[in-house]
């Protein structure tokens, strides 16, 4: 039996990190949105580590926030510890990471969603997408209800045909003991969407009262917490520590003795796992010269004893897991609350997507998150936000919001997965970004808030504050440029006091700030006209001045890059018809249908010579068309 469940502009399938951002964005942009989840208690669930951010990922969260997404605010409100990583290195690779109170994180996100006008959250399992004439028309759920819609965003995470593996035990299951979604895969396939099988895993959760923390190294958060959200003024909490401990020879011995019982090694698990989340057995087998591996002990929240044991994910049988955890100092008596497991799931080939995250050949059908083959909460949320915005843009017949590689980590992420394709779960890394120096976490607002504002996700008040900051920073840099000090004895005495060297001629404060040992704050002794700047404005001034030369160099490269991005390619080309293109290149180009010369040049298997051929072909077509038009 089916029945009409109602009409919506947009249906979002799945209320994980991608789905929540997608639904909120769509609703906030004024469109009537339905958010479906297999279980209302799993909204914004963190089935793996209890933290948000980290290298590269922290950048994504700040970008999401700069665009008007929710993740940054949500973690700011529910964090129990925070750290800025890489502070010993330069600003381009500073990254925020916070430990979350998992349950609190979920509750707050659910509350925000429930209170969002235009948005309805429902517990329903989506089973079918309804397509008519290459257009999405609705989503059907297990109970038989059909929700008509004009756009749909699939954010099904790791639920599709989820299979849980714990050693020799395996069963159909979603993450964290939830049900898998067993039907939607079939419907996707019937609509011509090919699927691939990926794998990921998570370690056991152990009971805090069974651990001896005295045998571990305490790891505290930063003294001063820097918020993720540009809207959060400050965060004052009592932070909870994490702990560090190590595996040892005994641990490795147990693994070696039982390796034939690991489904990763005896061939039972065939899905492709990510290299950056190796199971403990993989680490021990691959790096057998290392006599110990780090184990990070992370609390899952304030109101729970559950402890996440980072570094110990495993698909060994439960009895082996328990034995091997108990070899680790401080975990001798560890009691398991949840076992480590591996999960296999269906995902699509992201090369089938446009940069808007809409499927190339079904109008109005978008995909975001782990279904696209990425891993990580932040990667998912970033895609969800973009898919949400673009579903709306599509309905409004407006150009999609596409961030390019020079604008955002989000742009790099999406361009990578749709252009290069992926053969293992994709994790954001700073080294994937060629313009890393420009895409800093500290300037995410300067890069993206105008785009969020134009999309309608940033309110007037916040936008005004943003503009004020921008102007303040620009003015201050100007001022420092024209503020010079003389090489007087008095000034040079001060220079030496500040741990620097004397100046030989008059120099602007701008120039002096470029010295590695100088900071904006230190220069105050020379500067009696200094305006009052807040810390983030000071940070901008300092970073922009200190790295000016390098920033300029990258900007020049970006200019070249943009030129190629702006050379668009019609999307109806049949590349196999272009004489002179090598077959391999023609096939790749046909599969990906790049939007621009720039994108085409990034497809593996397309050579510079192929690009030249393509360029001539396009010119030939252009002239033909002109002639026909004359």
């Amino acid at each position, binding site marked *: 039996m089916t029945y009409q469940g109602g009409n919506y502009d947009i249906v979002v399938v799945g209320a994980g990190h991608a789905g929540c951002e997608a639904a909120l964005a769509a609703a906030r942009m004024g469109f009537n949105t339905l958010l479906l989840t297999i279980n209302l208690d799993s909204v914004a669930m963190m089935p793996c*580590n209890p933290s948000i951010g980290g290298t590269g990922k922290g950048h994504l969260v700040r970008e999401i926030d700069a665009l008007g997404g929710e993740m940054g605010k949500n973690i700011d409100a529910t964090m129990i510890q925070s750290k800025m990583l890489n502070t010993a290195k330069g600003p381009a690779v500073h990254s925020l990471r916070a430990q979350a109170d998992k349950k609190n994180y979920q509750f707050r996100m659910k509350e925000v969603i429930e209170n969002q006008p235009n948005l309805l959250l429902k517990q329903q399992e989506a089973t079918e997408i309804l397509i008519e004439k290459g257009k999405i028309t609705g989503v059907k759920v297990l109970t038989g209800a059909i929700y008509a819609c004009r756009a749909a965003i699939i954010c099904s995470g790791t639920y599709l045909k989820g299979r849980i593996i714990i050693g020799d035990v395996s069963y159909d299951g979603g993450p964290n003991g939830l049900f898998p979604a067993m039907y939607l895969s079939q419907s996707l396939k019937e609509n011509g969407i090919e699927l691939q099988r990926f794998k990921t895993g998570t370690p056991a959760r152990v009971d805090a009262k069974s651990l001896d923390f005295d045998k571990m190294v305490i790891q505290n958060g930063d003294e001063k917490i820097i918020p993720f959200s540009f809207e959060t003024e400050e965060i004052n909490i009592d932070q909870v520590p994490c702990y560090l401990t190590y595996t040892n020879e005994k641990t490795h011995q147990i693994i070696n003795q039982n390796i034939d019982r690991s489904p990763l090694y005896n061939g039972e698990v065939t899905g492709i796992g990510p290299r950056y989340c190796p199971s403990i057995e993989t680490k021990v087998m691959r790096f057998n010269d290392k006599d110990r591996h780090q184990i990070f002990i992370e609390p899952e929240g304030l109101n729970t004893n559950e402890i996440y044991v980072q570094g110990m994910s495993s698909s060994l049988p439960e009895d082996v897991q328990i034995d091997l955890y108990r070899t680790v100092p401080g975990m001798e008596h560890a009691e398991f609350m949840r076992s480590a497991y591996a999960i296999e799931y269906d995902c699509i080939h992201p090369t089938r997507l446009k940069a808007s995250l809409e499927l190339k050949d079904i109008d109005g059908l978008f995909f975001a998150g782990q279904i696209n083959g990425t891993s990580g909460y932040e990667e998912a949320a970033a895609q969800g936000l973009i898919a949400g915005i673009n579903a709306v843009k599509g309905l409004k017949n407006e150009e999609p919001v596409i961030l390019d590689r020079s604008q955002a980590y989000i742009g790099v992420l999406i361009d990578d997965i749709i252009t290069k394709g992926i053969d293992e779960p994709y994790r954001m890394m700073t080294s994937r970004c060629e313009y890393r120096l420009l895409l800093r976490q500290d300037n995410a607002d300067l890069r993206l808030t105008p785009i969020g504002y134009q999309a309608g996700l940033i309110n007037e008040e916040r936008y005004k504050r943003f503009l004020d900051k921008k102007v303040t920073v620009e003015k201050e840099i100007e001022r420092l440029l024209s503020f010079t000090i003389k090489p007087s004895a008095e000034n040079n005495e001060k220079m030496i006091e500040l741990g620097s060297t004397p100046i030989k001629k008059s120099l602007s404060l701008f120039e002096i700030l470029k010295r590695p040992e100088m900071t904006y704050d230190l220069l105050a002794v020379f500067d009696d006209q200094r305006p009052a700047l807040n810390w983030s404005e000071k940070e901008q001034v300092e970073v922009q001045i200190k790295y000016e030369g390098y920033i300029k160099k990258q900007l020049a490269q970006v200019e070249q890059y943009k030129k190629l991005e702006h050379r668009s390619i019609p999307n109806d080309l049949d590349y196999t018809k272009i004489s002179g293109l090598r077959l391999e290149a023609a096939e790749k180009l046909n599969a990906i249908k790049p939007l621009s010369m720039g994108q085409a040049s990034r497809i593996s298997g397309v050579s510079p010579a192929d690009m030249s051929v393509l360029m001539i072909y396009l010119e030939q077509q252009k002239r033909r068309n002109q002639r026909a038009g004359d």
Partner: protein
Amino acid sequence: MKEQLLNEDTIAAVATGLGGAGIGIIRVSGDQAIALVEPLFKNPKGKTLTKAASHQLLYGQMVDPQTNMDIDEVLLSKMVKPHSYTAEDVVEINCHGGIVPMQKILGLLLSAGVRMAEPGEFTKRAFLNGRLDLTQAEAVMDIINAKTEEGLKYSVSQLEGKLSDHLEEIDQELLAILSHMEANIEYPEFDIEEVTNSEIKTSVVTAVKKIDQVLEGSEAGKIYREGITTAILGEPNVGKSSLLNTLLMENKAIVTDIPGTTRDIIEEYINVKGIPFKIIDTAGIRETDNEVERIGVEKSRNLLDKANLVIFMRDISKPLSQREEELMTLLKNKNTIYIANKTDLKETEKMPDPWIPMSLLTEAGIDLLKQKMVDMVYAGTVNQDADYLVTNSRHINQLNKCKEHLHAALETMASGMPVELISIDVMNAVESLREITGKAVGMDIINQIFKNFCIGK
């Protein structure tokens, strides 16, 4: 590949092969063509390229602006856009001096910012700029990949052996340090030792040294697989292997007083005044039974076909044998240098033409031989493929670029900049290097990180 797609930069190509007369044309096309050639040109009456009229020949000298030394006597013609083949500003440099000055001029152009044209690129630009008819598009498209493949084969063949080993070593060195830096950045909390500036410096300096070695160091003569193929022919025991060793300044070939010491053909690469030669030491053509002699003659005939230059050697202390006379007739229409070796054994006041007197024992006559080898190249009697010249110049240019980026890395480090900025310079260096082999960097860094370091949750 960005520059190549934008068609904005100025490119150069060798427009004709080096003909018999040693004349070659370097064609420069693009916005900066005139401005970039100008500082390399000197006219006796002070005329400048900038002021010259379009489509007029201008006589003068190409000079190295740094040393102010004359490189070659040239005729320049400037063609102002759109009245040129590419419809861009074009300067054609007609060189007279053969391969050495041409290579030098190309080198100067490249370091001034000109890019070596890709195969078919002049034609591509001509088409894109509307110079060629629509109907010619297909032909142009077909040509590009075909020519590229050809060029690639050529370039790869040059990369065989030692050079490619050296490049691989440099690549590995840089990739290792880069992936270490990146692993530290991506995984700050893991047990990976923090790479120190002095380690980075060591790697960078090692790479620079290796590049220098490739460029000009002790093995400079062996840079490229190709060079002017030069065969040393002669009877057994006349001193052929000794000559090779003397030219190499090391003992590569086995020398004994037993005739027939060298059994196989030995190839070595040397550099004489900037010109690469591939020297082939042969087994002496000797008399045993008929069968062997047949093979011997056949072998030397084959060799003669391949060789651009032949050094024929006799032992002056012995009378000219019949075989030697036969061989000399065979060599009549080849570029041959005649060496009379072992002058120390027999007093001879004056050697009749064309014999160069030599004693490998005292090394007398070696300089004369070298001069003669170079002269023959200059004179254009011995020539080389234009392809060689292009590939060679491009490789040298890429290696120089790689070095520049490495020096920038050292500077970045010295000015106290953080690791992610040093990483940019090293990355640029790797990319320059990779342009020689055409291998994209792509996922290599990330792959290295996961291969070399045990990281991840």
